[in-house]
């Protein structure tokens, strides 16, 4: 029987830039950061209140991807094809103002929905996420 999700991989265009975005802008904590030679780093981060859930920041150029796959992935990410997930926060207006002040790009400002208030932002690669304050 499955129980929990512990890791998820997000493809990013540039690992160093993603590192800066997820730690300095979103405030995530680095869990593992191990150099992997030509493959960059094995780099995982966690949302501040969820240390058991690791997001693997996977560069699109990596041994497990063919050149063609890397290029296709890059194109799709830049186009904004991937909605990766939903993050929740305690106060969406404060979080929205803070992230905007840090230069995070929002494609939807806080908007009332039937389940709470939601905004949409993009990471530095182009992956998009929902930011929600659930009521």
């Amino acid at each position: 029987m499955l129980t929990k999700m512990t890791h998820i991989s997000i493809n990013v265009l540039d690992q160093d830039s993603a590192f800066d975005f997820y730690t300095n802008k979103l405030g995530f904590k680095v869990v593992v950061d191990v150099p992997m030679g030509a493959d960059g780093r094995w780099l995982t981060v966690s949302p501040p209140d969820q240390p058991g859930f690791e997001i693997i920041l996977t560069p699109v150029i990596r041994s497990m991807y063919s050149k063609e796959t890397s290029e296709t992935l890059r194109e799709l990410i830049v186009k904004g094809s991937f909605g990766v997930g939903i993050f929740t926060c305690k106060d969406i207006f404060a979080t929205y103002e803070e992230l905007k002040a840090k230069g995070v790009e929002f494609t939807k400002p806080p908007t009332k929905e039937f389940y709470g208030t939601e905004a949409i932002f993009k990471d530095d690669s182009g992956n998009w996420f929902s930011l929600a304050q659930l009521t």
Partner: protein
Amino acid sequence: MLGSEIPVFMTNRNTITEQYPKIYLYRRIVQAKLFIDANYADNIDLDNISDEAYFSKFHFIRLFKNIYGKTPHQYLIAVRIDRAMQLLKSDKPVSDTCYAVGFESLSSFSGLFKRIVGITPSIYLMQQQKIKAQIKSSPLTFVPGCFAEKNGWLKNRNFRETKS
């Protein structure tokens, strides 16, 4: 009536960016938080922050705590300890770390660090050094096997050593 058949959540679907309640209050509190994030290492006078935010000190502390769950002072301490953990991870000695994040006394730094992190800064530093040594000697112990295999890293377990 057709209108009455539209679910409430659809009729209420209003964008509220500029109209949300007390946006100016949010902006001032967020600015104060960002000020602490940027200046934690200095001798920040929290009274000045509430002055700059145009609030009475009491009102400011209450609003800040509502949003961030901590008073500005508690938040400042949390930022300093968090930054201290990063510096210790990068192998900075405990006393250098203490002063670099804005504490003036080593004993109060160690006490607060232990209260928040659960271990003293010296023990934390030693733990991080051990982890670093392990990363260097056997990096793949930090990577789930499935990903290591997919990337072909298992065939080349010693690539770290050969690289450096």
